[in-house]
């Protein structure tokens, strides 16, 4: 798995030095790693078990990592290995909590003509009904700075079906590869891609509407 690292790992030493120093009890480095990797590890845990116990899951996973670190063989990067341990811990917790959400109950027929035919953005021949207007905002930071828009996005994210939300968090927040996401959530790659696009497209439409009308 190749992680898109959105943390501050550039300040951490390169892989082999990192592993050696962590095994050699470099406490300052250990703390730096815990803090730098937390956003993405939290994203993985939250995608599987929800936000309420995600920190707890990450903490438990780190305890396992600490115990197993001297046996780390370097078959993947340390971060990939830690991420897998977090995902496994989260999956175990998920099973224990016996949550009723089925990760496999995916509507495979979303991307069919029947759904798209009713999409008001397009006419019967599949062209845009109206020219898609450009957005005033040109960077993610500008989008993030617009408080009302973020409140609106929050509202719509909370309404997304859980499977869509999980996959979007794993892919777009935690930066995981599809193969890894499919292993963790036990969904097929085609289903994962359909669900991911459905979620992203929904949020794009939320932002587009806000840009157009200033309304949520």
């Amino acid at each position, binding site marked *: 798995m190749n992680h898109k690292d959105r943390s501050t790992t550039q300040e951490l030493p390169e892989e082999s030095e990192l592993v050696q120093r962590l095994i050699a*009890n470099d406490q300052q480095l250990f*703390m730096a790693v815990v803090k730098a990797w937390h956003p993405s590890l939290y994203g993985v845990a939250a995608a599987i078990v929800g936000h309420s116990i995600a920190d707890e899951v990450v*903490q438990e996973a780190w305890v396992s990592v600490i115990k197993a670190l001297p046996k780390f063989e370097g078959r993947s990067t340390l971060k990939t290995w830690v991420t897998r341990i977090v995902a496994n811990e989260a999956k175990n917790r998920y099973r224990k909590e016996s949550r009723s959400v089925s990760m496999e109950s995916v509507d495979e027929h979303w991307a069919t003509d029947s759904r798209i035919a009713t999409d008001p953005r397009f006419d019967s*021949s599949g062209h845009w009904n109206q020219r898609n207007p450009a957005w005033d905002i040109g960077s993610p930071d500008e989008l993030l700075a617009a408080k009302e828009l973020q409140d609106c996005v929050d509202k719509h994210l909370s309404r997304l079906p859980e499977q869509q939300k999980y996959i979007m968090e794993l892919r777009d*927040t935690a930066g995981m590869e599809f193969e890894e996401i499919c292993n963790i959530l036990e969904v097929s790659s085609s289903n994962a891609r359909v669900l991911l696009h459905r979620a992203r497209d929904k949020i*794009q439409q939320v932002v587009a509407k806000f840009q157009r009308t200033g309304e949520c």
Partner: protein
Amino acid sequence: MLSCKHLVEQASDYIDDQMTMGKKIQVKMHLFVCVSCRRYLKQLKLTIAMLGRRNQHDAPEAMCHHLLKEYQKTLPKQGS
């Protein structure tokens, strides 16, 4: 030629590079002539970038403290 609705349907696959070369060429040809779809793709990429930067959750202090204790306690024993 690929319609706008089909391009929109496949936009994430295009962005994530989960598409065959043939499909990719069809998408590129469509984008060359369609301003609305070019904008949609740009907007979807912006949306994804925004989602990636939201809810960046810092490690709680209590957790860091607990883990540091575990690290101090466990690793010297196993590393020696």
